[in-house]
């Protein structure tokens, strides 16, 4: 193991340019993947924010017994899809309308706006089907005059989310594949550059495991360094975008570590495949 590590480090020392090129190539392919990941992350966050606004609003008929609505609020809160229920009285509705539409404040007269029950839904229940199902359950209450949940808007949002998810997954896979291919061929180059060593090792009777070890370590280290460099590059880009374009979210610590380790694993895998090809003869 000691020798394997020494041989791996010797490869860096002996061909610093090739090693730097490998690490940079790995870093840039992971950087492209990372940038895409950042865009996907922020898009998802933005959509999640919008989605939080999905609500079902049931308007209460005038003159309904407040006890009946209060009881209904209790029932509704127990629905599995429901995150929160708010009862908005006529007075509160009027206040809110006047506050939100300041310049038309005079248009609203007392009693013009009905009381309503506003329901926000839990994450995972904001698709059109679930929203409609919740809305339908309001129909059992006699005092409910009208139910609104912005059907068209919910559907559009859902569609947008589906498209974003599908595009995210397919682009993510594509980027990851491109990264794996680039890293694989980079490491293959390094293995080819050392084919003489592999040949001699085989000739003098080194076992395949022994021959593989330095290359696996080298690949792992290159992947790790590439990953760190890619993380740095995405962070710099994030800072730049944050300063000049738009405030965005960066990866959490867990995600960043996962990304760097992912790079290392790709390096390891690329090495294993490349060196395996050299050893498969005989």
């Amino acid at each position, binding site marked *: 193991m000691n*020798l394997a590590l020494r041989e791996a480090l010797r490869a860096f020392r*002996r061909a610093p340019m090739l090693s730097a090129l490998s690490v940079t190539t790995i870093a840039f392919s992971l950087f492209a993947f990372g940038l895409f990941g950042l865009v996907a992350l922020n898009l998802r966050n933005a959509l999640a924010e919008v989605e939080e606004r999905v609500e079902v609003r049931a308007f209460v008929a005038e003159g309904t017994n407040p006890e009946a609505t209060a009881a209904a609020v209790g029932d509704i809160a127990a629905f599995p899809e429901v995150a929160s229920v708010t009862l908005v009285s006529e007075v509160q509705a009027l206040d809110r309308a006047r506050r939100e539409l300041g310049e038309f404040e005079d248009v609203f007269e007392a009693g013009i706006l009905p009381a309503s029950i506003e329901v926000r839904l839990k994450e995972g229940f904001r698709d059109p089907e679930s929203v409609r199902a919740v809305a339908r359950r309001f129909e059992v209450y006699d005092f409910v005059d009208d139910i609104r949940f912005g059907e068209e808007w919910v559907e559009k949002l859902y569609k947008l989310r589906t498209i974003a998810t599908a595009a995210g997954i397919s682009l993510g896979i594509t980027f990851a594949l491109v990264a794996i291919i680039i890293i694989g061929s980079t490491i293959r180059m390094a293995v080819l550059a050392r084919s*003489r*060593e592999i*040949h*001699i*090792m*085989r*000739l*003098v*009777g*080194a*076992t*395949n495991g*022994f*021959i593989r070890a330095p290359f696996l370590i080298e690949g792992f280290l290159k992947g790790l360094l590439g990953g760190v460099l890619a993380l740095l590059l995405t962070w710099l880009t994030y800072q730049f975008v944050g300063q000049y374009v738009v405030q965005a979210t960066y990866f959490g610590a867990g995600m960043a570590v996962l990304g760097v380790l992912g790079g290392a694993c790709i390096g390891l895998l690329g090495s294993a495949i490349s060196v395996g090809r050299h050893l498969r*003869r*005989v």
Partner: protein
Amino acid sequence: MIRFTHVSKHYPRGGPALDDISFHVNRGEFVFLTGPSGAGKSTILKLVYVEERPSAGEVRVAGLSSVTMRPAEVPALRRRLGVVFQDFRLLEDRTAEQNVAFALEVIGTPAAQIGPKVARVLTQVGLAAKATALPHELSGGEQQRVAIARALVNDPLVLLADEPTGNLDDRATRGIFQLLRDINATGTAVMMATHDLALVKSLDYRTLEMNRGRLVFDSGAEFPAAADEFDPAVTGPDAPAAGADPAPEAP
């Protein structure tokens, strides 16, 4: 110690490289493999150090048969062989002694034994004074000596030399050849492929002459195989019956 029994080798795109070859090499023997380029000399050596496997027939080396040998057994066999090539195949970024030590390190020799072994073998090939020189600082003959030292450092049963003097001038050739004879004199068998007929004819060593994949002459054919203490299987119950065609090895 080395026994070829009806060995043929076909390359998928190159046609037959060896055609029904049978011979044996005893322990401590010196054997020339001669013939023009493409005659199959290198293929025979490759079959001995298991770089290739025969398409038909059986190659036995140090008691291991090509028919039954598992890939995991190949490294152990190679540790009992030494191989040198026309182009030396040294690692350019390592000194002479590091090149030799490399052969010991990669098979897990304890560090304490490496230094003395390397020094001993470099002295044997006459390069003790240039132990710290890099290959490009050495002449062709000296580089080949380093390669021979590397091949010898594990005390092989046989030294396989594939045109070891092909890149060398006359003087260096004589030096390397004398070194191989000295090595042979210590009991190590030597199989040397060469197309230097003048060299072969000037000496009374056993010669296997190849032509187009066939063994056309064996100056030692009249001598029976010596009982070989390193190859009990040759005389054991699992030895192939004379004339029997062993099952061809799957590629």
